[in-house]
């Protein structure tokens, strides 16, 4: 029994060398700070989407409606999926859903979240620049 105890303990310590090396590498390449998004250090692209959506959120009131414009259908799909949690109390009109363009292209939405280059659609001229893009507002909604 004493031998088995030792085997388990030595084994556990050996297993913990994996996390030790992970942490050594992490602390060598990262500064310890409060992360700006839940996937900050693991999924940089998702983190960039998240930071943009979080920055735009205060400009979109609860109960209104939004759509997302982005450079590619993949960007729009992932941004829309992420936005469902951050914009749960806002009505969604996705321009792209699961990589498919949607009828209307989100033209019904009052707020247009533009990811990337801050360029508003012609029918949503009022622009607020945010981190990662812009929030454009359609006047007549």
């Amino acid at each position, binding site marked *: 029994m004493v031998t*088995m105890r030792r085997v388990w303990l030595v084994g556990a310590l050996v297993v913990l060398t*994996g996390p030790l090396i992970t942490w050594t590498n992490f602390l060598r390449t990262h500064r310890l700070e409060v992360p700006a998004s839940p996937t900050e250090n693991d999924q940089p692209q998702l983190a960039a989407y998240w930071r943009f959506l979080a920055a735009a959120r205060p400009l979109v009131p609860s109960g209104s409606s939004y759509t997302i414009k982005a450079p590619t259908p993949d960007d729009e799909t992932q941004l829309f999926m992420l936005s469902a949690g951050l914009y749960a109390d806002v009505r969604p009109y996705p321009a792209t859903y699961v990589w498919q363009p949607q009828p209307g292209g989100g033209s019904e939405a009052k707020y247009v979240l533009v990811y990337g280059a801050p360029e508003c659609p012609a029918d949503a001229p009022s622009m607020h620049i945010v981190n990662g893009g812009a929030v454009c507002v359609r006047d007549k909604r």
Partner: protein
Amino acid sequence: MTVLAYVLAYALVPLFGLSLASSIDSRSARIGFAFLAGALLLTIEATVFTMFGIRWSIVGLSLPLLIASGIVLLRGSESPSPRRQAGRGRHEAERSAGEGRKRESPLIRLRHLLPRLRESEGLSIVIIAIAILHFLLSILTTQSINPDYVLFWGTKSVHFALARALDAGYLLSPFAPPRIDYPPLLPIVQAWGLLFSQQMPWITAAAMSAVWLMAAVPVINWLTGSIHATAFWTAAIAASLAFCGSGGNAEAMLVMYISVGAAAIVARRTSIAGIAFAGAMLTKEEALVTIGAILVGVLIHDRGIRRAAILAASPAAGASVWFAFQKRFGMHVGYDRVTFTHTFHWDNLPVIVREAPKSLAAGCWGLSWLIPLAIVLCIAVKRPRSLARAIPLLLPIPILFAFFVYLYLQYESSLAMKMWWILPRLSQPALSLMILGAAFASSDRMPRHD
């Protein structure tokens, strides 16, 4: 404040599950299991509430479960179970010895207390604490938060909390989240936290995955009777969970329910196993395959159907709660997770063999597999009879791997990438079974639970 309120909500969960944990004679294991059982009861209750059109509220969800726990605890204090009484007898003796010591100085009392903890037990506790901290900090520093959490698990939680219901309208909406067929335990528990915090503390809510590991540790220790094996199990599972990015998704819950259930089978605590398996079935669809494989092990071990039938009934009842909800709201009834084409691509076989070791690294170069495997092989040579009691844990491992191969042979494209993404997570219950199997086979303290 949001974070504190969210954490407070989780602190209440063990109170909900005390009614199902009262037979456990170890206090820490009782609290740990009460957390797992409390999450299960909360899920069932919240689902049933929605089916009957009752909106969720903190009081509405808490009260029935607290009353149930209260009644069981009151009955327990009037007529303690033989198991608890045996435990109490021990405590009484310790207390009277302690009263004798009351006259001693605090330093002398400390000296009496410390030798109880052997050096190796102290080291085990330190290992357990480091392992849990590793998983927790990996999530808090966002190294191990799963993308699925921000894409659909957390999203569902926010919508459910906002609707104060298991919002079928959202699940069936034209812009539904992915995986609407996934069982509801995790989103319901996360939404429960949101009822308190009002806003989603995204990183904190993901970090709660570590609480599940923390809850399971004393239960595993109690069931295996070995703090040393528990320390190894905790180190291995924490390394694997962090490696797989299990913050915020349902992996931690699934592994904990399966592990506790499987260990309880060998420890002959059938009711504990049944409750844990019901929790697993309401957590993730993958539970179906793992529990099925474990039940095959039980059938072979027992050479009879009785215990396997009892153990099958509980997860079936758990799943039926979710299926009843699906039927009630016109959703597709059942699990959609795995698609079988039954067209086998045999040229996938070399890719499977080549990629599997990389996917089984579990955050420690696969040592968490190799060490218990070496222990099992050693026992198989030296005292093969000891392996018999671990059959329900060890037999499912080849069955599960055969299932993975069967599944991967049907993949049409990008097999290596998909294996790298899925297999580390999918293999975690098997990893846990391997460690627990080795722990039970190498232990001579099993009769404790009989």
